[in-house]
């Protein structure tokens, strides 16, 4: 035990102190004079709206980028990391918001990147590496072959792998930038208990999330950022920090209720989209994809259908199959009573179906291209004239209006979208589909990485769209969100629909039960199939 610690038993000295850090980007001040402290054995929540500067601060701490000014002290010594390795050497381990796994390498290799276990002759021992990784990923509740390439994993699985890797490193400070954004309840619970254990072992954790319940449940203290400035600190005072207090600090005014349960809306619409006996086959290119097994589903005009399920339940596959992105083996899809067979997303879009995919980085954004291009790409026909020329004025006007309604924070329409915070990127993608005005809109994790305020706005928007008669299918791993906006909810497990209920009758408990059907029964089903 260090002498400093002995001196102040009640209040251990800070492991990390950030003093007046400022960071400018081209034309943007992302952080301005931010100070905070993290002590060993505590979980510090770092909260703030999209674009508040959380990720920027964390990147500075992990040596990804230098601050424009300010001082960082780690373990009593001034700390100027020049690259991620400098931070790593001191025991600062980071889980980045944008996943930073190497897609072409296997799970095992990603976990052991740069430190593969060596066997005789000093050569890499693949056996040991894969064995060890099996144990490491099991800690976060993941059960897959470590020899699988990461490119074959779902976003959630990738996130778990990344968490597992971070946890397997020797660390004194773990920085987690939205580690739970793609996870469902079960995995989140598992992560929480691991974080708790780490805290007891004296590890300091900085934790960023937009799911405030999570933050409230686990954080000892919170630091809140607003527009790149420090908005204040919150302390656990006996009980967990209350949500309204957090929200007030974040947005600067008292908050209304977070997830307003919908009053029962009268969804009198006809069945718009109908799916019968939908099956998919294993695709050699994506051997780990869930195979759908006879899915039946109806989606009415003007209705929001929530789809709940655990990671790997096949929700994404269902969405992709309807959208024509994956091949269908059997089954029928009808739209407004007419059978359709979209062979590609282009077909589906032409029929009036839209999909906001779950993997923003790989499936939705054009990172280097401007916001304007990103916005209009699915509606090029709408913003061009008969001769194929873009009508840029209308395009810009449309973007400007969505910028206002969705409160997208951006510098200019030409700004590359990669310069936006994650939540703002998500809003641009939503705007992309709103601009198409689809008949059926499928949103897969629509609020992944979106802050509370904006999340409420997104929910509002979905409800408004539904009110205009659009049929909406919303896949979400956040049960409160599903409960908040769905008129009707179906649950999925292992490629099947396992239950259905009206939104107002649903509770988290009921849904959880349907999502996680009896495991042994499930195993039997599996055997019977083979």
């Amino acid at each position, binding site marked *: 035990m260090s002498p400093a610690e002995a001196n102040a038993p009640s209040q251990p000295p800070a492991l990390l102190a950030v003093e007046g850090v400022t960071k400018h980007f081209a034309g943007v001040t992302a952080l301005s004079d931010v100070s905070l402290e993290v002590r060993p054995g505590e979980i510090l929540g770092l909260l703030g709206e999209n674009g508040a500067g959380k990720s920027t601060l964390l990147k500075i701490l992990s040596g990804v980028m230098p601050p424009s000014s300010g001082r960082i002290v780690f373990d009593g010594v001034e700390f100027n990391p020049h690259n991620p390795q400098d931070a790593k050497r001191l025991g600062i381990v980071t889980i980045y918001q944008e996943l930073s796994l190497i897609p072409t390498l296997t799970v095992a290799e990603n976990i052991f990147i740069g430190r593969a276990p060596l066997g005789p002759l000093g050569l890499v021992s693949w056996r040991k590496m894969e064995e060890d990784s099996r144990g490491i990923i099991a800690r976060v509740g993941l059960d897959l072959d470590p020899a699988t390439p990461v490119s074959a994993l779902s976003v959630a699985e990738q996130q778990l792998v990344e968490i597992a890797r971070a946890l397997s490193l020797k660390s004194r400070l773990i920085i987690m930038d939205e580690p739970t954004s793609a996870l469902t309840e079960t995995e989140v619970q598992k992560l929480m208990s691991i974080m708790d254990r780490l805290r007891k072992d004296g590890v300091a954790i900085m934790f960023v999330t937009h799911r405030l319940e999570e933050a409230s449940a686990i954080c000892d203290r919170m630091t809140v950022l607003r527009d790149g400035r420090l908005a204040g600190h919150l302390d656990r005072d006996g009980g967990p920090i209350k949500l309204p207090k957090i929200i007030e600090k974040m947005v600067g005014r008292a908050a209304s209720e977070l997830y307003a349960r919908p009053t029962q809306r009268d969804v009198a619409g006809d069945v718009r989209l109908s799916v019968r006996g939908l099956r998919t086959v294993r695709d050699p290119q994506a051997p780990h994809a869930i195979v759908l097994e006879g899915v039946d589903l109806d989606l009415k005009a003007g209705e929001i259908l929530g789809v709940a399920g655990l990671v790997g339940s096949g929700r994404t596959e269902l969405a992709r199959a309807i959208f024509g992105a994956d091949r269908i083996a059997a089954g029928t899809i009808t739209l407004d009573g007419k059978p359709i067979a979209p062979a590609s997303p282009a077909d589906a879009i032409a029929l009036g179906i839209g999909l906001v995919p779950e993997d923003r980085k*790989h499936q*939705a954004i054009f990172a280097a291209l401007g916001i304007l291009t990103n916005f209009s790409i699915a509606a090029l026909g709408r913003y061009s004239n008969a001769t194929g020329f873009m009508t840029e004025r209308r395009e810009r006007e449309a973007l400007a209006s969505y910028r206002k309604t969705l409160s997208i924070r951006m510098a200019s329409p*030409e700004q590359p979208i990669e310069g936006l915070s994650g939540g703002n990127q998500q809003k641009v993608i939503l705007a992309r589909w709103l601009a198409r005005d689809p008949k059926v809109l499928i949103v897969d994790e629509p609020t992944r990485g979106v802050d509370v305020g904006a999340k409420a706005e997104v929910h509002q928007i979905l409800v408004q769209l539904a009110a205009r008669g659009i049929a909406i299918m919303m896949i979400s791993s956040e049960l409160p969100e599903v409960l908040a906006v769905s008129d009707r909810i179906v649950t999925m497990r292992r490629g099947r629909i396992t239950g259905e209920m009206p939104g107002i009758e649903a509770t988290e408990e009921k849904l959880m039960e349907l999502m996680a059907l009896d495991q042994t029964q499930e195993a039997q089903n599996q055997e019977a199939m083979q």
Partner: protein
Amino acid sequence: MTSTTEPSQRSGINVARLLMSFGPLMFLALLIVVFTVLKPSFIDPINIFNIMRQISITGLIALGMTFVILTAGIDLSVGSLLAFCGMVAAVVAKGGTANTLSLSTSGAQGYGWFAALLAAVVVGALAGGVQGFAITRLKVPPFVVTLGGLTVFRGLTLTISNGGPISGFDASMRWFGTGLIGPVPVPAIIFAIAAILCHIVLRYTRYGRAVYAVGGNAEAARLSGLRVDRILISVYVIVGFFAGLAAFVLSARLNSSEAVAGIGYELTVISAVVIGGTSLFGGIGSVGGTVVGAALIGVLQNGLQFNNVSSYTQSIVIGLILILAVAFDRWLKSRVRR
């Protein structure tokens, strides 16, 4: 950083700023100044027009290549395809494969320049389309398909002409290579018009947006409803078309179509595009950049020849300056933010 670009400034034309922010252009200006100081006659209109005529051949292909590289593709076959289209144009222009050697225009009794031009661009576009088809349907990477194309088209060309050239076209065809409009060489005018059209297509049309999107993220493009395969095929058709057009102009200029034409052009053409700032990984780049890139190479070669620098030294200098030009651009970009 401190000085943010105001939106209003963006649309205004500000030459100094443009120069400052686009390294290759600045480098080009610098080279012209240096060569002019070394030998003032460098900047004689006659030499400038020479340079323009010289870069027009590879420049035309580079325009097409810009489309291809924007989609993160590549086309190595352009040099061979140029030779192939040129031979086709010659056969049409002369009315047969007979190896008519006369350089005099009177010997020609073929189908005229228009048929020759049409044949060249149609064959080029078709050949590009076939390659695009192999890329999208057979899922063979562009590098491999067009490398195959490189040897296939050369073999076909040699087979058609049995290794020899086909020479001697009529005056109306030759005009496209050697004619002048006012003082300006026709090939330079063709190149300029094509560059402007390409710029407009890429910058102001749906199709252009789609090309950038496919190069920026093909999967996201597909999920946004773009017909990615069609767009990919189309860019190879475009570069093939331009190879055909360039072939026609080159044959008209040389009064001869040679089986050995265009060897090594792929590298010159790709250099022009890449020096102009287009990323080989797709999604980033512009026609303006390509024009500057082509001009940079052209000025460099001409300027060194102009000063009768020995060919060995020329190689060394050209290599170093290409690297420097791009390094300088990167350095500028890292200083001045977009």
